[in-house]
Structure formats: structure tokens, C-alpha cells
């Protein structure tokens, strides 16, 4: 989750054009909280998509 959160945070900063404007970690607190939520959503979405694909394609269980 730390890895996903960091990547999401960097992405959000770049999307908001707020890169290279931070002096201390404390300043990214709200965006870090948002990044955690987005990261969890992405992790769950990928997992859900895999469950869905496995159900649709009747994929055999891994051994």
C-alpha cells in the first residue's frame, strides 16, 4: 500500500501541477490521505477485475 500510495501521490501532484512546490512532508498531508484512499480503490479494483475475469473465462485455479 505504501508503494501504491507513493505512486498515486506523485501522480496527483503532477496532475495538479503542484510538483516542486513542497518544503516539508507535512504539506502533502491532505493529498497523502487522498492518495491512500485512491490506492486502496485501485488495489480493490484490480483484484475485483481479476475475480471477474476468472469467473467470465472459467479460468482454472492456480496450483
Amino acid at each position, binding site marked *: 500500500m*505504501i*508503494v501504491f500510495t*507513493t*505512486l498515486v501521490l*506523485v501522480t496527483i*501532484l*503532477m496532475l495538479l501541477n503542484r*510538483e*516542486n*512546490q*513542497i*518544503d516539508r512532508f*507535512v*504539506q*502533502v*498531508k*491532505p493529498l*497523502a*490521505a487522498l492518495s*491512500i*484512499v485512491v490506492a*486502496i480503490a485501485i*488495489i*480493490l*479494483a*484490480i*483484484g*475485483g*477485475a*481479476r*475475480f471477474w475475469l476468472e469467473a467470465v473465462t472459467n479460468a482454472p485455479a*492456480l*496450483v
Partner: protein
Amino acid sequence: MTFMPAPPGIDSQAASTPSTEPFYRRHLVALVVFFAGMGFLAAPWPFETKAHAVMHGLCAQTPSHSFYFQGLVLPFDGRMTGIYGGVLSAFLILLALGRHRAAGLPSSGSLVILLLFVVAMAVDGFNSLLTDLQRWHPYQPSNELRLLTGWMAGVAIGTVVVMLVGMTFWRSPRVSQRVVSHWWLPILMVLPNHSHPTADRNGIAARLLPVFPSCSWRPR
């Protein structure tokens, strides 16, 4: 009477001082993590099922490639445990060394080592694939090797992410400071893998360690 406008940023700094911030804003990150964790624990399924479901998109979860703990298969297989462990190890060590503000490329020596780390995982991955396909393979794959090579690749990925943070976050990134300055630093970041309960203490890492005379730590 003259009016002197406050320099930009003063108001926002005053508003964000810890003493004036409400509780929920001061501990926003901790609260989000807490509620996410509580939500996970409160979900009405067995812990193992929930852990596997949450990690389902991040890892293949092949049982034969996974470690077992008290008879239960762990939600991450050996390689993924290594990759995420390696990334975490790189994060923590580079943070401890103050490299989170560094925006310079790794030194040439460390760059070569990091590339070799990724190549090592690729080689082990293909060897494992060939074994699964029941084709000729150079050596017998093992979960310990998956963990080690995954950890090595994780160190490379973590280094890149830390450098990305150094380049992206800070108002004045330290372009002249290399994120990894010495060739042996990536190898140092692999050493925590050896403290992993599932690590192979007689394997490759154990044989590599004596190469570093300055390292007082030896495998048990």
C-alpha cells in the same frame, strides 16, 4: 498609514500550524489508515479469505510459489513478498540516509548493480516459467530464490520511486545529490531479506555476504 501586504504563503502557513489545526486534519493520514484497517478487520469473512481477496489483483497467488505459515498459504507469493519487501527496504534505508530529497541519478556502479538486480529476477522468472511449462530449465526454482531475486528487483524499483519523489516533490530538489551514491548500497538494501523468516540462510545471499569485509553481520 501604509499597508504592507503579507508575503505569499504566510496565511496558509499560519493556518496549517499544528496548534490551530483541528484534530481530524492533524491526524488525517493516521485516521484514513485506521479506518481502512478497521474496515478490513470488520468485514465478515475469515482473515485469510479477506487477505487473499484484497491482494488478488497484486499477486498471482500461486500456492506452489507461496510460503506457508502454520499450514496457511500467505496471500503474497515468494517473488511478490520479495518485491514489496525490497521496495520497503529501499524506502527505509534511503529515507534514513536522507536521500528522499535527492534528485540525481544513481552512480554508474550502483546503476549497473540495480540493472543486474532486475535481470536476476527476469532470469529466475523465466527459469520458473520454463519449469512450470515442463521445458528444459537451467536450475531448479525455489521460493527462497524467488524471494531473493524479487527483493533485488524491489530494491531497484524502490530506488527509482525514491528518486521520482526527490524530483517531483520538493521546491528545490537536490539535483547534485545522487539517490544512490555507492555501488554497494543496493547490496546493503538486500541484506534485510536475510532476516526474513523464510530466507535461505545457506543460499546465494549467504555466499555473497563475505565479499563485504566492512560488514560485521554474518548469517546465523
